[in-house]
């Protein structure tokens, strides 16, 4: 390769991951432009309800399917739950999702959270010794650089942590207790380990109760213990009620509406309203896939004898996002996902990951 060609490729690679649609070289395929904002991705690992380590812990096809959609729809950031449960199977699945997403250039907002009503995480975070073990493990498994999915395709995605999800709604923790007992110690401990990794505060629920909860969190000093303030929006009437003039940028880490037929209208109507707020930096659509039909999800997934098959449920919004990507790519061919990730099993947790988890579990 001539020096001029090399520089052209390097510049294209550097910009494509963030801005997208920039040609790496004439006629060379480009990665899908990252122009669709954020998306919530559930770390789906099996299609049944098995909650233990019964093999297979992770069905790689499911990970592959969701990654493909996130990539092809041009999302730049994926928010996913790194469900603690004493480093149970869902946490293990989170490793695969985070590594793969970051490898294909999608930033990850990882929730230090837990599915279900168990108190494992809250108990661990409130105890300094256990909190140290938990955060050491999250940092060790998620914070290090990852290799790009394919040479000359970069940069890789970054990692950001969010400290729990809707703590009042899902855990019954008051806004003040959340800031005092959970956000502050976790923020300080994370910063002591990795000051370069941004920490996002938990978002309150996305209705009018959430506005009041957010105010109470702010009055309790939340901004001193996070890099980003978060909120959820499921009722557009709350948008003008959101507190203004914050000391931190705001991410809308969930935004969505029930009913597939309403998705596109919601997206087109609320996104400009949210983006018009002075401190809103990112908006995450909720969600790519969940188990409830005709609620929030963009796609549905079915298990067939031939494997897992996805179909588009939110046809209007899906088509809109696809058009956005095509338009942004202009006449440049897009690098197919299958060439970017020929085998997703590459991102399965390694033996080293498993050893680290075993050691951490032993210390809890």
């Amino acid at each position, binding site marked *: 390769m001539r020096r001029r060609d090399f520089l052209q490729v390097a510049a294209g690679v550097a910009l494509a991951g963030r801005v997208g649609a920039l040609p790496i070289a004439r006629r060379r395929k480009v990665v899908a432009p990252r122009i669709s904002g954020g998306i919530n991705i559930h770390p789906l690992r099996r299609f049944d309800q098995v909650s233990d380590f019964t093999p297979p812990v992770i069905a790689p096809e499911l990970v592959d399917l969701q990654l493909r959609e996130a990539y092809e729809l041009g999302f730049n950031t994926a928010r996913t739950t790194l469900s603690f449960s004493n480093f149970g199977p869902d946490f293990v699945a989170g490793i695969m999702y985070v590594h793969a997403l970051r490898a294909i250039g999608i930033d990850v907002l990882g929730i230090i959270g837990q599915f279900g*009503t*168990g*108190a494992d995480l*809250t*108990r661990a975070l*409130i105890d300094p010794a256990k909190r140290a073990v938990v955060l050491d493990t999250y940092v060790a498994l998620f914070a290090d650089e990852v290799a790009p999915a394919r040479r000359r395709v970069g940069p890789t995605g970054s990692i950001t942590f969010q400290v729990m999800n809707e703590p*009042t*709604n*899902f*855990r*019954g*923790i*008051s806004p*003040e*207790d959340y*800031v*005092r*007992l959970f956000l*502050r110690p976790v923020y300080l401990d994370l910063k002591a380990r990795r000051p370069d990794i941004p920490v996002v505060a938990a978002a309150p629920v996305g209705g*009018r*109760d959430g*506005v*009041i*909860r957010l*105010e*109470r969190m*702010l*009055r*309790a*000093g939340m*901004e*001193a213990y996070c890099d980003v303030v978060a909120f959820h929006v499921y009722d557009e009437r709350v948008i003008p*009620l959101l*507190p203004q*003039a914050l*000391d931190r940028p705001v991410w809308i880490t969930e935004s969505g509406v029930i009913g597939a037929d309403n998705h596109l209208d919601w997206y087109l109507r609320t996104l400009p309203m949210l983006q018009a707020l002075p401190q809103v930096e990112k908006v995450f659509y909720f969600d790519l896939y969940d188990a409830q039909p005709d609620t929030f999800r963009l796609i549905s997934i079915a298990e067939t004898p031939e494997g897992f098959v996805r179909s588009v449920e939110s046809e209007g919004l899906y088509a809109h996002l696809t058009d956005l990507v095509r338009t942004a790519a202009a006449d440049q061919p897009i690098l197919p996902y299958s060439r970017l990730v020929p085998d997703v099993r590459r991102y399965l947790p390694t033996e080293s990951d498993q050893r680290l988890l075993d050691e951490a579990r032993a210390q809890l």
Partner: protein
Amino acid sequence: MKFGPPLRLVLILAMLGVAHRAGAQDYDDLRDDSPLPDFAVGLLPPICALGCSAVQLVDLEFLGRTSNTPSIGGFRLRLGNRAFFGARVDSSRKAFTLMSARLDAQYFEDETRRAGSVEYRASRVRLQAHASQQVREGAWRLGGRIIARLSRNVEISLGGMSDTETQAPIGLPQLLYAADVGVAWQHLTWLDVLASTTLRSWRSPNGDEFNDHRVQVASLAYVGRASVTAQAWWEQTGGRFPADVAGAGLGVAYAPLSNLRVDAAGQFTTRLGIKSTSQAVSAGVTFFGRRYRFARGGNAAPRVYEMVDAGWDLGLNERRSYTLAGMRRLREVVGVSRYQSALRDESAALYADTVADRDLPQLGVHLTETRADVLGTRFRSFSVLVGVPWPIAPPWSTNEQAVRFLDFEFEYGETSPAGGLLSIDRSIAGTVRLNRELRAWLKWQQPRFSPLELALGQVYGEGFEIGLRYAFGI
């Protein structure tokens, strides 16, 4: 239980002593109302409700639990004609009180805080001062209040406080200073009205300062066979996150029959312009033995009114209170004042009417539901009370002399914080009331947990509670 064996022994011996004395006191004061007629009362010292030169035990309490909660012990002594001194302790907290005709002093201490307050009651003015210190931080909170009594029925109050700590604690705003002004009006025995306004200044943990301003009015009226309480308040918070919150409440108690009382109450708060933030409703019905008299509808209420007015003429500065504890306090204050002789007859008459008015609940059912929408918390409870005289007699066989009762109470509660958690608490208690002054109970309970305790999984099992409470002259 966290009390050592010596303290437990002392408390048990004291209980026995109190049981002995309680009978004597009742006999001396109201011979027809003696709970223990077979006592050799002639050998016991006479009561000294209106004058006494000896030290006398007037309150004793003990609460022992098998759960994680510390046991509590407390007592209060009458120090002759001078004052009352009390103490209440558990394994980590101590509280002491001193009350005389003109002075009230209190001291409290636990692992995190020391606090003291003093009130001096001149004939027309009450002066209050309080101070507290955070043990670890060393910061002081100082405050004072002046309450001027403009007439028999009207008083105004001016208060203020300041905190030397200017750094907010983690997760909570720090109160920097507060000032308030209020007025209270009491009209005869049937109407009390209170109004006040408060201004407070706060600093949030990240250094923002903001003020809030609160205005509230409350009233209690007893009309006919109904008692109505009403309150309303409005609070405006400034600063970076301004908010207007308002609330109102109404409670009605009505006695449709001479021995039946029906209660209903409701309260709500709302964040103006956003949504309702909390509601509470309750309802209940209680059947009483003998008869039921509202606190302001019995014979004792006019006695209180007359005695407070008579004290006012002499220079005493006491408010009218119609609760059992309030009426007892009035008699105690008079009993250690230099006006005890002048008010001897009024005090004796008040005590006699307090006894005659006493309620004897025999069957009651109560329901409550409270919702804190912002926190997503809902609490529901249901309780049933059954009280039977001992020896057992049917409710319709009125016995004015009955003072010994057995009470059984069952309570059931559900706490539903957000997140799909549900905590159920239950308790069943049996209480022996030997007379108005002395009661002992045994309770089994499955405790209630806070939403945070549930979130942290900090729940523990059921346990027993044993308690004794003696209150001389209640």
